[in-house]
Structures are given as structure tokens and as C-alpha cells.
């Protein structure tokens, strides 16, 4: 089978998740080469060995040709920045000749072959997975899921597949440009990072396929309609279809509470969740300072509050006066 290039985007805090993604992807799709778009820098003394983590390679944020990079980094929090780079990375991979590119969030684990995606990319330019593929019925589920999609986006951008066609590249360029300017978590303004933008994709581009198979991108936000079961052959199913990949968003009690709400009284989804936790422990990142993110603090180690990022983003005069906002000390932006 021909190689397919796949990438994820993360800081070192999610390296354990990246490793689980790499491990499960390699098991079921050995012809997929996983690249990491790294939105971070190593802390002193930390040794990073991408090849040992099952990665085909690493592309650092500084290698994506993002204009005004320092300002971009400062004006985005970790989630915003990790999503901002997705457009630029996709665009660059296609520009460098990849004929098919798939994005997978680092907190995804693959459970079965994704060969069907490869087939779809021979027919379509862009493949998206909606958060939900059928209506909910319970009022609480409508509130959590359907209204959630209206707020945060119809499609979950934990997954995206794009062909290196003209239309695929036109999409990638458009998405890259929008994210460079408007990749914020600002739901009241109609923005939610990279995700809300893709609500426009079926209207803007030809060759868009909405993948409605319930086995793809299963997560707490669609579990109400996709019960996890395991049949007598040991095949894991979502809504009766083979589970392709599960999106383990928020592996904490908040995420588990959502899963509990929609587990339908079945234990299988909890087995799945705890399997994932065990794999994270196996792949735990050692030697990383707690809460490490190279861009999370001023030069003197003071954490950067979200309000500072917002202020710097909104004020052209501050950006002009303090070209390096990370600087600490008397002449620094640090308020």
C-alpha cells in the first residue's frame, strides 16, 4: 500500500497521547506515516527522540512560515496555538507533494483499519466527521450535543482528510489563512479555534464528503447515539459498526462524567477509557516539568494570563511598543 501522510499537533504535555496515537495507528495502518507538528520547545535537559515515539518526523512551529510568529504565539493560548498550526501544516505538507494528508488529534486512539479513508480520498477532496450524525432525543443530550455543535462547530476537527488535488489545496490555503488571523476560542463572536471555520467548508468547496459512519470519531459528544459494544468475536463496535477511532477528550473526571451520562448503562466504554489511561501511563513522559509549555510563561517564569494575551492581541500600540512580549523586567510588556 502507498504511504499516506498523517499529522497531529501538540505540545510536550500531550506527548504521552501522541505516543498512544502513534502506537495504535501503526498497529492498524502501518502504511500511514505520522508527523508531529510541535508547538513547544524542550525544557532544559529534556531529550526528545521522535523516532522512538513512532513518529515519521517532527515539524516545529517555527518551520511553518507563520508571519509574525512571536506575536502569534503570544496572542494564543495553548489550545488556540495547537489548532492554529493545523492549517499551515496541512498546507505545507500538500505543497511539498503529499497526495493525501490526514489530521488526527493527539488524544485519538485508532482501533481498526482506516483504509476506507484512503478510498474516500480517491473520490473526494475533503472528508469531515460531524460531531453527531443523527438527532438526539433526550433534552439533556440535545443541550449537550446538538446545541454544543451549534456553538463549537458542526464538524469535529479532531479528524480531517484532504487530497492533494487543486480543490484540496484551495481548501488548505483558505483554512491556513483564516486560522492565522482568527483562531480564537471566542464563541460569542462566532469563533471556536480551527473548528467553527469548517462549518463553511461544504458551502465553499466542491468534493467535500461528510463521513457519517458512526465508527469514526466516537467521543462523549456522540456516545448517546453510538453505544460501545463488544461482540462475541471480540470486535469493538460503535452503534453496531466497527469502532475505527475514539476521541478521548478530557481524560479526567469531567470527561468521565460525560461518558457516564451517555454510557447507556454499559461497561464497555469504561473499559475503553481505562485501557486508554493505562496506555498513557505506559507512555508517560518522564523528565518534563509539571504543566510545561515553553510559551506559557514570561521569560522570568511568570505564567501568562489569558487576559494578557487578549490585551496584546487587541492593542496594536502594545504590539508596536513591545515587539517581544515575552520579555520580563522593567521594560517589559508584563503589566
Amino acid at each position: 500500500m502507498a504511504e499516506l501522510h498523517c499529522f497531529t499537533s501538540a505540545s510536550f504535555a500531550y506527548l504521552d497521547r501522541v505516543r498512544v496515537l502513534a502506537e495504535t495507528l501503526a498497529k492498524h495502518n502501518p502504511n500511514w506515516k505520522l508527523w508531529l507538528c510541535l508547538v513547544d520547545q524542550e525544557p532544559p535537559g529534556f531529550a526528545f527522540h521522535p523516532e522512538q515515539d513512532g513518529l515519521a518526523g517532527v515539524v516545529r512551529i517555527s518551520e511553518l512560515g507563520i508571519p509574525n510568529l512571536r506575536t502569534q504565539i503570544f496572542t494564543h493560548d495553548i489550545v488556540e496555538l495547537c489548532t492554529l498550526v493545523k492549517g499551515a501544516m496541512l498546507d505545507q505538507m500538500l505543497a511539498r507533494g503529499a497526495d493525501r494528508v490526514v489530521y488526527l488529534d493527539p488524544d485519538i486512539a485508532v482501533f481498526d483499519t482506516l483504509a476506507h479513508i484512503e478510498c474516500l480520498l480517491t473520490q473526494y477532496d475533503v472528508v469531515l466527521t460531524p460531531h453527531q450524525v443523527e438527532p438526539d432525543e433526550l433534552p439533556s443530550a440535545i443541550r449537550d450535543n446538538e446545541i454544543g455543535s451549534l456553538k463549537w462547530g458542526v464538524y469535529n476537527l479532531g479528524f480531517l482528510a484532504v487530497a492533494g488535488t487543486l480543490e484540496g489545496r484551495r481548501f488548505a490555503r483558505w483554512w491556513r489563512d483564516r486560522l492565522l488571523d482568527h483562531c480564537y476560542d471566542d464563541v460569542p463572536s462566532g469563533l471556536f479555534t480551527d473548528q467553527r471555520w469548517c462549518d463553511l467548508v461544504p458551502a465553499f468547496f466542491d468534493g467535500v464528503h461528510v463521513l457519517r459512519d458512526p465508527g469514526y470519531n466516537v467521543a462523549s459528544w456522540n456516545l448517546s447515539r453510538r453505544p460501545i459494544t463488544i461482540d462475541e468475536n471480540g470486535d469493538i463496535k460503535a452503534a453496531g459498526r466497527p469502532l475505527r477511532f475514539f476521541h478521548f477528550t478530557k481524560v479526567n473526571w469531567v470527561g468521565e462524567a460525560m461518558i457516564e451520562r451517555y454510557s447507556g448503562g454499559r461497561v464497555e466504554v469504561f473499559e475503553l477509557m481505562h485501557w486508554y489511561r493505562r496506555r498513557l501511563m505506559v507512555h508517560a513522559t518522564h523528565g518534563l516539568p509539571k504543566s510545561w509549555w515553553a510559551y506559557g510563561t514570561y521569560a522570568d517564569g511568570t505564567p501568562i494570563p489569558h487576559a494578557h494575551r487578549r490585551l496584546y492581541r487587541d492593542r496594536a500600540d502594545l504590539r508596536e511598543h513591545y515587539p517581544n512580549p515575552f520579555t520580563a523586567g522593567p521594560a517589559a510588556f508584563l503589566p
Partner: protein
Amino acid sequence: MTSKAECELVAPFFDAEYYAQSNQAVLASGVDPLAHFMSRGWREGRDPSAEFSLVYYLRMREDIAAAGVNPLLHYAMAGRAEGLATRRGMDAERRLIESARAPSDRGRDWAAGGDRGPACDASTLRQRLADALDGRAGLVVSISHDDVEANVGGLQNVVGEERLAFERLGYVYLHLSPALPLPTLAPKPTKHPFHYVVRAGRERLGLAESLDLTAILRDLRDSGVGLFVIVHQLLGNAPEIVADIAKLSTIPVVAWAHDYFTICSNFNLLSNDVRFCGAPPTNSGACGICVYGADRLAERPRVQLFFSQIRPRIIAPSDVTLAFWLAHAELSHSGAAVQPLARLILGPATTHGYGQPGRSLRIAHLGHQSFPKGWPVFERLAARFGSDPRYDFFHLGQRTRFTGKIRHIPVRVTRDAPDAMLEKVAELAIDVVVNWAPWPETFCYAAHEAIAGGAFLLTCRAAGHVPRIIADYVPEQGLVLDNEQALLDLFEDQGLRAVLDRATRRRGLLLPQGGTADWLVRSKHGDSQLRAPDFSQDKFALEAPGRG
């Protein structure tokens, strides 16, 4: 200060006995548990009942946590009306999943245990065996996972009964168990010696190095002593060593399927300790997410090799078990049979029906408070109906955890008191025993004891052998339900009373059987109860293991 009104508000949701039991160390004598909870216990995270988790409640309502309000008081005043949950759903099952560990991982904790005494000198062992065999018909070599004289359990009972039966027939019964018990197979034999605890009859001969033991048994066999090797359990053993011993058997080896260990190191086939998996392929997605999956994959070739080399006769303790093993084990064998561990002998129907006038129906769980025995389902049943005047809930057995609204009755079944459980069921006039094993039990003593004690047996379709007990022995003294909801529904309305009114109460005896010895006798005489068509050409003779 807590007001009297506040105490009255929360009192219906506070379990004083639970609180007192759970906080013995901090509750000074004479202190009122509710007063302690209201004044400081809730701040210290001490749950007011088994049904109310403070941590869970506060996680679900961060506003209450931020406001520093007593969660139980909030529940009584508002949360209950809002329908807030007080404990996470499927808590028992989720705790099991969270605490599940691979046997190879658990085995590391076991490494410090075991019998590390010096091995018996080979010549001494040889002489003692020769002495024991003097004038005897032959030697039975029985292998299992632990020292049957030092441990209590169903398998140990059977081995004990089997030893007695063989001894009555004139054989010496040699029992071998690993000196270091393990929840897995023992590592492959290397230059490190493997030691067995060796017993001849009940007498402990000591530790023996496996190579010495194999050599002694080989010499005995070569000198004309009949050897019959019975493998009760591969757990804790190195199958390569067991195979070396089994090859010395002068008649076909018997391997028992007391559980499903030859299929998976989770011998109940409970995925992550919580869900019956049905033994899917080792490379399945299910095995991939199960803590037992990697061990199963690693151990499977060693078990397969043992069975292909030895091709033993399989004996299962129930037909349900045998059918499952034959369908799923995919291991070489040369025949298969069923040999129950005990037989139920029932008396005539009594005139005493269920539900004695003037008292509640007595509902009981027998034995271990464990998930494979269906304890969480019984606990949920009791939590829901514990305050219902129609029912009283009992636990008969050894208590390992607080039972709340369930009255605990200590019962200990021992070799000297094998009928202690069924006698207690009868003595207490238990009306109903709920036996809710979530996996196909291979042979359930508790279900037999329930019926022999005169109780009505409620079980689920998944419990394998247990529904068959009802079908085979007492169709009018038991009921098989589809799922837990059907059980709750039965208790909710008048359904249970109606079922009991139609039922017949009989009492009985539980006759222990002689394990492999009993099977051999039945095999020889072609007992019609033996479901072993493969043995129609059997050339076994009871005399076969004898000298010459």
C-alpha cells in the same frame, strides 16, 4: 452550629450504622454518628452512607463545593428534588475496571511469598515414595495450583475427595503444587530449579526439585509402578514441566476444566474483571483493551503446546462448562467427559411453602462478596429494597466488606463442616437465594447449597451452569431471568410473591463426589449419566494403573 431541624432534614439519607462502621477510628464511644457527620465529618470527606459519595456529589455540582455547603444538607433541601445523583453510575463495575491488573503484574507481588524451604533430598524422597507404595495398587500424581491441605475452596475440596476415593481403591495419591504460587503460568523452565510442594496422601513430604521428582517418577514407572497423572490446574505451573511428568503416565492423562484458565489467565473470562468476554480470538479488539490480553497472548502458545503433546482427556464439572470449553478452547485432547463435583439428592416436597406468615421474605446471597459471585447485583437489590417491609436481606458467608442493610450471618464451610451453608439456609428458612454470576459458572456450590437448603433460586441466563441446575433438578424451585432490570421488576411489584406461591419447596443433600476416581468407576461401568461419547472405545480399566 448544626440545628436540630437540619439534622432532621438529612436523617432519612444518613446511615448511622454505615457511618459508625466506616469511621471506627475517629468516633469516640457515645458520640452520635449523625452529630459527628454534621459538625465535621462532611468537611473531612466522610460519606454519610454507602449510597452517597461526597466527592462525586461535589464534582457534579461545583457551585456547592465553592459555596462550602454541606452536600447532604443540599441534597435533602434541593438536590433530591433536582434529581441529582449521589453516587456515580455503575460504581461497583467501574471500581473493578480501575483496579484490574494484569496477572503478570500482580505476580510480582506474589514473588516474595511461597514456600522457600530447602528441597527434600532426592534419595530421601525416593525412599519415602517407595515406602508409601509398598503393597499399593499404583500411584496417582495430581497437580494443581496450590497446596490443597493449606487452602480452602471448591477445587481443593474436589482434590480432597478424589484423594480419599483413590486411597479407598488402594492407590497412593501424590499431590504436587508449585512452592511459589502465581496468578499466571510459571516462567519457562531455565537453569533455575522449579520446586513443588509434595504431599503423599495428606502428609507433606516437603519441597522437591522438579527434575529430581520427574526422575524418581520415571524410575518408578520403569520399575512397573502404574502411574496416573491428573492435571487439575495449570495455573502457577510451568506447562513444560507438567508435560514432562504427564508423559510418564501409564494411562491417558486427565486434565480438568475447573475454570477457563486454559483459555485465558482470567479464568472467569471476565474482561477487565467486569464483563464476560466469551473467549474471543487473542488478537481481537476486546483482548487488546483487556488487562489480561497481553498475558493471554503470551501464555497461549505454551498451553497449546502442552495440550498437543499430551492430548489429555478433558473432564469438566458441568455440561455447560464442557460445551463451552469444547467450543472455545481449541486445544488438542483425546476425549471429554462431565464429572460433577457434588450431586444433589432431593427429598419430597414439603408442606411448608415460602414466606412464613407474619414475616418478610428472606432474601440471601451465599458465599463470597465478589463480582464473579454476583455480589454487586445483590447489593444494588438490597440498596433499593432494603427499607421495603416485604423483604429482609441476608449475607451468609465470610464477610469481607460492610454490608449495610444486608444482615450478615457468619458461615464457614470447612472439610469438617461441609454442610454448614445449606444447614444455615434451612435453619434461617431463607426464602430466596439470588445467584447472579455474570459469567458461566463451571460448578456453583452456592446454588446447590441454596436448593439443598430449601430456598428458591433466582439467577440470570448468563450464569451458565446455574440455570441448568434449575432446569435439571428443580424447575419449580427456581427462576431464570434475562437481566438485572427483570430482577428489580420482580421485586418491585407483587411478582416475586406470586412466583413463590406457585413454587414447590424441597430440601436435599449435597453428596460429594470422588473427582477423577468417581469418573473412572463410572467410565468403567458405563454409567448412563456419563456424557462422554468419546469414551465409548475407552480401554481404561480401573486396574490399569496397577503394578505390571
